[in-house]
């Protein structure tokens, strides 16, 4: 097991933009299929499984995927070393080593990995590390038609997010200046 490190990449989720179309789920399953085609993947055995799911919470749609913890409980409890970090720091499972014990499921703080009854192996998000190494976007990000999923280097993505939030704050400030009595 590699030392715990936080991956330098992030998929930032903009919950307000998510329309709940579930295109990310489809793209995820296809990306994790053998044939990599929407037309043939649904017929594969074992069936390709999506590793992202959109939940409806009140007014918001919430795409749930692995957070790729820096100090991942699933990696720590895995008895065979199947759950491990890639060089980038993504948490992935080595199916050859996985015995399907399900300890990863028990310890995950957000309920992400589970043991697939069809294969007896843990199923989880891989951050599409192979696609990223080829210079492609993670499949869910590429599929999102409204840019609710934003992929990039953590520092760069957050820089942009902060800039956007800053403009919200600035507008609030300007609005406040207009509607509040000016300090005498």
């Amino acid at each position, binding site marked *: 097991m590699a030392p715990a490190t936080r991956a330098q990449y992030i998929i930032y989720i903009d919950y307000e933009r998510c329309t709940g179309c579930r295109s990310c789920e489809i*793209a995820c399953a296809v990306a994790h299929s053998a044939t990599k085609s929407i037309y043939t993947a649904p017929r594969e055995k074992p069936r390709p*499984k999506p590793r992202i799911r959109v939940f409806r919470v009140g007014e918001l749609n919430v795409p749930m995927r692995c957070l790729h913890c820096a100090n991942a409980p699933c990696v720590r409890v895995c008895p065979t070393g199947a759950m491990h970090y890639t060089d980038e720091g993504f948490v992935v499972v080595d199916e050859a080593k996985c015995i399907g014990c399900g300890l990863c499921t028990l310890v995950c703080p957000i309920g992400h990995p589970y043991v697939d009854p069809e294969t007896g192996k843990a199923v989880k998000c891989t951050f599409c590390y192979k696609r990223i190494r080829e210079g492609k976007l993670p499949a869910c*990000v590429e599929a999102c038609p409204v840019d609710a999923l934003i992929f990039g280097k953590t520092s760069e993505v957050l820089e942009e997010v902060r800039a956007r939030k800053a403009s919200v704050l600035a507008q609030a400030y300007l609005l406040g200046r207009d509607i509040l009595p000016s300090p005498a």
Partner: protein
Amino acid sequence: MKSPRSLRIKPEDVTTVKGLDKLIYKAEEEGVELAWHRFMKQQPQCGFGLLGICCRNCAMGPCRINPFGGEPSRGVCGATADTIVARNLIRMIAAGAAAHSDHARDILYVFRDVAWGRNKAYKITDPEKLKWLAGKLGIKTVGRSIMDVAKDVAAVLEKEFGKQDEEPLALVKALAPRKRLAVWLKAGICPRNIDREIVEIMHRTHMGVDADPVSLIAQGARAALADGWSGSMMATLLSDILFGTPKPVKATANLGVLKEDYVNIIVHGHNPLLSMKIVEAAMSKEMQELARKYGAKGVNVAGMCCTGNEVLMRLGVPIAGSMLMQELAIVTGAVEAIVADYQCIMPALVTVAQCYHTKLITTEKKAKIPGALHIEFDPARADECAREIVRIAIENYQNRVPEKVFIPKEKVELVAGFSVEAILSALGGTLKPLADALRSGVIKGVVGIVGCNNPKVKHTYGHVELTKELIKRDILVVGTGCWAIAAALHGLLTPKAASMAGPGLRKLCAKLGIPPALHMGSCVDCSRMLLLLGMLADELGVDISDLPVAGSAPEWMSEKAVSIGTYFVASGVLVHLGVVPPVLGSEKVTKILTEDLEAIVGARFYVETDPKKAAEYIAEYIEEKRRRLGWPV
């Protein structure tokens, strides 16, 4: 951040038509967005949509089915993927059948007005064809004036849209082979009324009506047959009667047909009512003189899409291009007006036209586009309307920006206009020589290729590769629509192209002086192929489904193509699709379409995106049909 998607097109990746590369680069330099750019922005396309498993038919939804076997496995109402896919598919058929048949209705109304003397702008140009049709419909012609016959024909044809009984449609009874009619009656898919079959699809697919994919698809087939054997058939027959039945005619194709010093008008869309009049007006002395007054050498009209095919076949008007070339025509900077009626007119034309001086003129009440100049076309005042439109185009010549003009030099010669009558005449008056050539194995079969461009397929690659592969195997290719334009653009519609054919077909072409691929018209003219198939089956004493023939839509995209494909399958012809239809979300519907239909109508769909593999499969299919007939393979 999400990396910005590259928005540069590599022309060699998107089209095989010569000369378009320069226009694509020009468009990009001038900041013009084309269908291929928008197609890239749409990637990846919605998986639910591609598989046909989203349903928006009621407001409990929208619902979609998990294609990977998990939940949700049913819509809110309980509809399964099978139900949803079948409902969506036949709604496509309804739209396609509606488009063709409403086009027919427009021509029928003009024909009726001509018969009753209410419209003087049009006339009966082919009385022989009218008499032939009247005879087929059981209307007396001997000793009667042609106008009286026309009135009776109009009365029968208008009932095709509104008769209220269970009898088969009049044109179906009159023109379909007996053996086919029996198949349809047995299967319960014999069409009764064009509008009714379409309405019934809308009813059945409403929330909580028909949930059985088999019965849904049967109704789809019934509406498609109403389209093919009556709606589209009517459009073809009446166009021939009003404007003349096409005969072989030489012309040129590709954007090189635009002329630098002329006022260029492009007629775009489908209905000949408008385009024939525009050509007539543009060629008039008055308009040619007006053009010279504005500094041009004259007026040049070129066609685009199927109305282009209509004026090409009847008048030899050059054809500028197929569906995916409509924006590039404007990018030449040399088009004064695109005059459109309906179907396959991209709303994007407005935006492209804004970058140049081109005026997009819409003419149909049914087809308005925000930002276009709308001049309503009234068939009763057809000549006046056409003159007004041509005048606007001429006046727009002075707004042309010379430094923005670039017309590619590329243009190709072609022969078009192979109506059934023209084919018969090339054969010496009867189908027997063709039947004999088929039976003896001089040619192995006939394949009809139709329909569309689709950025999912490299533009014209699907059409042209399939055609070349088939003629190489001594299979005669006939076709319509954007296939015909694609074949023209690649020089396949000339007798010279026979050098690419196998020895048998080459011999036949040389003997008859015909190309190895025959331009049979616009997309409604697929009805001509139905007639030819029926006659061929009768000549050989078999059913259409026994013939060594097949159909193909290698680059299809429109709902009309779904209707066409379905009426060919229901008529007993294997139909190859080069673009995957949105049905794979249901194993059951996929199986019905690609396997089970065979037992009911004697044909089925076959999906293959590689045209070379498709050609191999079709050739084997034809071989199998020949073997069953006991013919040499």
